[in-house]
């Protein structure tokens, strides 16, 4: 029975990432699976290099200062943060808000089996996240210092323990979010606040780690004495670096017991959780409005309502906006620092720096993949739009418009900040404006095109439509490439003429926009009706 449940879970997981393109229903081809595997490998390598660099900086100094345990404490903190951040939202949807709970509970399956199968999925996902820290940490230590036999066994056991502990933490946080959002009746807002909070904390930790990693290496001893006060971290690190068996046993107990407790509590209360998840708060009656609007305005309002009804959709699309606005504000606040850097340290000119920042803005705009899920998110309600007497091009244009409107404040904020802090001349101000605008249109178009090519309409959890699948992935990759390619081109070709390079790039963007929008309004519209 458990095997059958696991099979279904794994099938849904694989289906989520590797489904075929036709109507989102077909099977993935072998080539696509290989492509996807290579892509994951690429992500693993990128993260590996990032974390590897960090570990390589601190491994030898920590070892020489006699605080090797701190290296593994750092590994534990980083992997734990990554796993908890990565899986809390999934824990919430998979355990507390899962749509097939009723179906499974109606069958003679013990709740503990249902729960165990869901937890196993979480553990697998967490392991994927953990690998990105685990591999560089282990490789760097093995190459630069070397594991003892007991240390290696401890490392493996404690890595498994961390996996279980992070799952328990993700469950706890997922439960808190689900509970608070249900009680408040503002599910989207609460989930958004929690998620953005997580993101802010995680980014702060990562950025601080990058900034202070050198300092960490130098002052390992003093840091170690401060962190020693938190005994479990010391036990965990010392079990691996010092091969201390007592510390190993204590650490395993600390990591595994919360997971066991979580399993027991959830098994006992699973039925209650399921029944609570279905109770929907009735809203206070408001006076009904019967105002009429144009079809275009009605479509845009509906698309906006859809965006704000889904925390995962909103969050996935708003990270780029938030980051762009923060970057713009920071740029203006730290304006003087930049000026000093420019005159003192920077070997490159102001115009080149401003150009690079414009492409940096394009990169952030590319992280707002609203259209990439805008058709998938319709799911089973797609029949409504298809049955209405309105041109398909207008339906698609409404989705594009929402993306463009969402990107505009972010793009304009960055454009203003760049031109205030690094004013080149009026021509550059104009130039940078039309390039950013072109990017906004282009990324919106790319997202919609990709979603028409790879829609997921038969989802049971809307996070599937928003976060996974080829559409969002391809959109993000293409957008990134479109931001990075001109950066490289400008770096290489700026010696010739920066302005010519920029002009050529603008022409390329304009041509791409014309081709894309022509396709969307003709063949794209036809494809939409065939979904």
């Amino acid at each position, binding site marked *: 029975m458990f095997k059958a449940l696991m099979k279904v879970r794994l099938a849904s997981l694989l289906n989520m990432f590797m489904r075929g393109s036709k109507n989102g229903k077909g099977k993935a081809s072998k080539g696509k699976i290989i492509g996807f595997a290579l892509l994951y490998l690429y992500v693993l390598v990128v993260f590996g290099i990032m974390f590897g660099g960090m570990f390589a900086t601190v491994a030898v100094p920590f070892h020489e200062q006699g605080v090797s345990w701190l290296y593994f404490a750092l590994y534990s903190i980083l992997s734990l943060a990554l796993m908890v951040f990565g899986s809390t939202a999934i824990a919430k949807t998979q355990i507390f808000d899962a749509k097939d709970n009723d179906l499974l509970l109606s069958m003679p399956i013990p709740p503990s089996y249902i729960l165990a199968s869901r937890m196993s999925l979480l553990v697998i996902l967490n392991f994927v996240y953990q690998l990105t820290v685990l591999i560089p940490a282990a490789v760097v230590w093995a190459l630069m210092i070397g594991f003892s036999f007991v240390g290696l066994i401890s490392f493996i056991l404690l890595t498994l323990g961390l996996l279980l502990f992070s799952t328990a933490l993700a469950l706890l946080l997922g439960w808190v979010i689900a509970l608070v959002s249900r009680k408040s009746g503002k599910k989207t807002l609460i989930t958004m606040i929690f998620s953005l909070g997580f993101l802010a904390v995680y980014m702060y930790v990562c950025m601080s780690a990058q900034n202070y990693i050198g300092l960490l290496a130098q002052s390992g001893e003093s840091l170690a004495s401060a962190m020693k006060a938190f005994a479990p971290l010391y036990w965990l690190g010392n079990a691996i670096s010092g091969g201390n068996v007592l510390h190993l046993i204590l650490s395993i107990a600390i990591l595994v017991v919360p997971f066991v407790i979580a399993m027991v509590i959830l098994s006992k209360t699973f039925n209650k959780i399921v029944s609570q998840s279905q109770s929907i708060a009735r809203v206070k009656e408001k006076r009904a409005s019967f105002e*009429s609007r144009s079809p275009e305005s*009605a479509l845009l309002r*509906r698309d906006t309502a859809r965006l704000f009804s889904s925390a995962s959709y909103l969050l996935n699309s708003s990270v780029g906006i938030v980051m762009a606005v923060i970057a713009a504000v920071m740029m203006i606040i730290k304006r003087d620092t930049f000026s000093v850097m420019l005159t003192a340290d920077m070997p490159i000119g102001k115009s080149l720096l401003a150009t690079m920042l414009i492409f940096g803005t394009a990169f952030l705009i590319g992280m707002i993949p609203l259209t990439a899920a805008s058709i998938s998110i319709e*799911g089973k309600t797609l029949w409504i739009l298809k049955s209405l*007497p*309105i041109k398909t091009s207008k339906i698609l244009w409404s989705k594009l418009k929402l993306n463009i409107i969402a990107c505009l404040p972010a793009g304009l904020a960055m454009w203003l900040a760049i031109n205030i802090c690094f004013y080149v001349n009026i021509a550059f101000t104009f130039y940078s404006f039309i390039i950013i605008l072109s990017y906004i249109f282009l990324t919106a178009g790319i997202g919609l095109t990709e979603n028409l090519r790879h829609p997921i309409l038969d989802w049971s959890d809307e996070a599937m439509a928003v976060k996974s699948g080829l559409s969002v992935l391809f959109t993000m990759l293409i957008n990134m490439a479109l931001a990075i390619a001109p950066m490289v081109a400008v770096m290489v070709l700026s010696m010739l003429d920066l302005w010519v390079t920029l002009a050529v790039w603008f022409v390329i963007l304009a041509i791409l926009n014309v081709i894309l929008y022509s396709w969307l309004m003709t063949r794209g519209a036809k494809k939409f009706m065939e979904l």
Partner: protein
Amino acid sequence: MLRIEHLTKAYGKKIAANDITLHIQKGEIYGFIGHNGAGKTTVIKSCCGLLNFDEGEVYIDGVSIKKDPLACKREIAYLPDNPDLYEYLTGVKYLNFIADIYGVSKDLRKQRMNEYAEMLGIAGDLGQPISSYSHGMKQKLAVISALIHDPKLIIMDEPFVGLDPVAAHQLKELMRDICNRGGAIFFSTHVLEVAEKLCDKVAIIKSGKIVANGTMEEIKGDGSLEEVFLELAEIKEGDGNV
């Protein structure tokens, strides 16, 4: 009002609708019956412009759905078998959205919304999110949204599923009223008693082919529709129309 001429639609090698020809006149309630997977939904979706068909034509009030789908859609209303509506909107917001697309004026939409919502017993729930509705309430809301632009032709796929007896009765009354005012209704159902009592004409589809069609009297003769349906279900494929 609705003319289906030699409609054929295949999914790969499987022919879901095979040379279907049906004519539905103004003022008629036309029932469409058949076993599960017989091809009813394929025909219905083709008539609404939701599905591209391979051969044949569908005319709504003389206009080809292939050539001018928008003009056709303005005249019809479609009610699917499963009311998957926008759960993130409230009932009234959903109805407003549909009314905006069809260009229904403020006064008319208010009047129709109130009238139908009162009749179907969900007037007090229109301000609530659709996600809090039961299956039957969603079905009622879908019925109101189908009627809000006063369509000439209503195409419905299993409209009585999920409705309580009172609402089902009211829907039947509404259907008759629409036809009396010159409209037409084409709907699929598994409930043969409903078809027998309500329909002026009926068509029976089996494995993608129409095996019988005509007025209720022509089809059932002295027996009941159930007897005819069961008898036809026994006929092997390829035996042609009855």
